[in-house]
């Protein structure tokens, strides 16, 4: 028996799939995934928020915040659309009230709810106009990375990520030899040279590491180190503000202490600030965070400046309510709005529909055809009943919303923050349709699959 054979045999015996029979996934899952493009649950939205945070970037020498070039031009209509929105718009900008309130937990399949939006009595039917900005990347990837590396004291060299196209490449700066820059030991700065040219600093050794404290007779770990908060190691709010101001200014965000938001717990501290354009906060944000060890562990920003593209007609708040249900009209507002408005439950929690806590810890032979958990997989599942929920829009505020166009560029457009009677909001683009070309709606019609068709193999 060769050495390779021995290793492969040990690996084969250790395959985690041998101890847990993979569930048989229904083909309906694909159809539902296709249909799911138009709705995002609360967790998805938070994940997108997280992505937005990590997409934060620098406005280096040019000064990202208010480097807007004013163009004294009022445009009431355009022969060609100014912005052709991305088909990913609904995924990138997911603030519709329906999406936010159609929340589900990790363990529960929630019924898909239909939402109906009604205008409240105080909404204005007055249309107007607003400035549209294009976010233009500044400097070069090399200069951005060098500047950020200097700010955080990171040593290393610039490498290109292997999976990015030449038109929008990604880079990282650090000492890691890993193709993705993460070796779990060295700090790394990532930069995505598309959209707002966002960069992200991550220091893996700033996080506490878990270790095994007790093992059973077979040597399996039974007790892992339980992390304890160490608030005494964390910076004070004043210290965090001072450091955030220093880092944000050094990486191109012109911001004052008053514009920096601090979020702290016994587990860590984070600071964030929006890039302001024409006095309005945007979702182009810088952030900085300390782990429970008190070490600076992550940060992010952008290298971008806003270029004014002209003033365009906008729809009224009343008209905007009609667009709330269409994901293609959603835009991304500043994180400030998420701090101001928090959703609350609008109905009783949906019934627990499906869970599978049946874990097969037995040997492979025991987890075969006779396994009851496998048998359960083939049983038809109860179908959740959708319900229609009515939300009344009580107030509206003007805001600058970011949207992605079809070529991967980011724009800031006038929008409406529509606040509903459940305390949450939807962000709707207010620019008239002639200025913006919407992506096509998706056809969700799925034909049933023929019996006996086993699908397409990859080999």
């Amino acid at each position: 028996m060769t050495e390779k054979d021995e290793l492969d045999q040990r690996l084969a015996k250790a395959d985690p799939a041998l101890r847990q029979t993979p569930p048989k996934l229904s083909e309906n899952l694909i159809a539902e995934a296709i249909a799911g493009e138009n709705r995002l649950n609360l967790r998805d939205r938070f994940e997108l928020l997280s992505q937005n945070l990590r997409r934060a970037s620098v406005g280096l020498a040019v000064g990202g915040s208010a480097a807007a070039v004013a163009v004294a031009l009022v445009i009431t209509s355009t022969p060609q659309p100014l912005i052709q929105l991305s088909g990913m718009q609904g995924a990138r900008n997911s603030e519709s009230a329906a999406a936010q309130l159609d929340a589900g937990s990790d363990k529960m399949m929630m019924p898909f709810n239909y939402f109906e939006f009604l205008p409240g009595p105080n909404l204005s039917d007055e249309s107007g106009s607003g400035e549209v900005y294009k976010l233009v990347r500044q400097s070069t990837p090399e200069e951005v990375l060098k500047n950020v590396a200097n700010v955080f004291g990171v040593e290393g060299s610039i490498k290109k990520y292997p999976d990015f196209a030449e038109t929008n490449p990604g880079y990282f700066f650090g000492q890691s030899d890993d193709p993705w820059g993460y070796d779990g030991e060295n700090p790394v700065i990532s930069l995505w040279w598309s959209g707002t040219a966002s960069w992200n600093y991550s220091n893996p050794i700033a996080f506490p590491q878990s270790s095994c404290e007790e093992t059973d007779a077979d040597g399996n770990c039974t007790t892992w180190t339980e992390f304890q908060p160490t608030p005494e190691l964390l910076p004070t709010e004043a210290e965090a503000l001072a450091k955030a101001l220093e880092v944000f200014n050094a990486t191109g965000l012109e911001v004052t202490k008053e514009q920096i938001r601090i979020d702290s717990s016994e587990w860590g501290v984070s600071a964030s600030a929006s890039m302001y354009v024409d006095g309005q906060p945007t979702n182009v944000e810088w952030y900085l965070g300390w782990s429970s060890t008190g070490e600076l562990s992550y940060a992010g920003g952008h290298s971008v400046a806003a270029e004014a593209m002209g003033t365009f007609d906008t729809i009224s708040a009343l008209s905007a309510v009609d667009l709330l249900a269409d994901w293609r009209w959603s835009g991304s507002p500043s994180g400030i709005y998420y701090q101001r408005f928090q959703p609350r439950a609008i109905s009783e929690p949906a019934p627990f529909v499906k869970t599978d806590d049946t874990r097969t810890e037995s040997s492979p032979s025991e987890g075969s055809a006779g396994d009851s958990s496998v048998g359960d997989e083939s049983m038809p599942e109860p179908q959740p009943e959708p319900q229609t929920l009515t939300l009344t829009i009580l107030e509206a505020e003007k805001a600058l919303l970011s949207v992605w166009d079809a070529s991967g560029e980011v724009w800031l457009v006038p929008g409406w923050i529509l606040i509903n009677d459940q305390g949450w909001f939807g962000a709707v683009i207010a620019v008239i349709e002639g200025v913006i070309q919407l992506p096509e709606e998706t056809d969700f019609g799925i034909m049933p699959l023929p019996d006996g068709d086993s699908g397409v193999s990859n080999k």
Partner: protein
Amino acid sequence: MSPEEFTNLYRGFLPQISGYLIRRCDRSDVEELASRVFEIAWRKRTQAPKGFELAWLYRIAGFVISNHRRAIRSEQSFLERFRPSDFAPSPEDIAVADLSLSKAWKKLSSFEREAISLTAFEGLSNQDAARVFEISPNAFTQRLAKARNQLKANLSSDS
């Protein structure tokens, strides 16, 4: 690509995706994560490399797993969500069958763990596995050999 074409092409990969996920997450999460994998695949369907759709799905599934793990960790601490990506089978899952292998596994980098997993567990060829990382087959072959040697060295040093 129409929804029908997408469904016809990708439904054959459901068992493989289920197997990939069961090695990396709790069984009760498999269905939801698989749904997320196919949602992303549908949105990015124009980017799928023809003939290497499964490798492409594994790549998406890797990112989904990574985000899922971050989400779980962030329940303990928000800051945990910013930890580096890691979507290979965990040492804890390996430890159930082979403790010493688990210890050796833990000392590998996330890339090394995933490279070995894709070939040993998912059964991909080097060419297909290289697609998952979007590096050349030659580069993957070299890095896989290095990863396997490192795993052997870790096993030897622990024994």
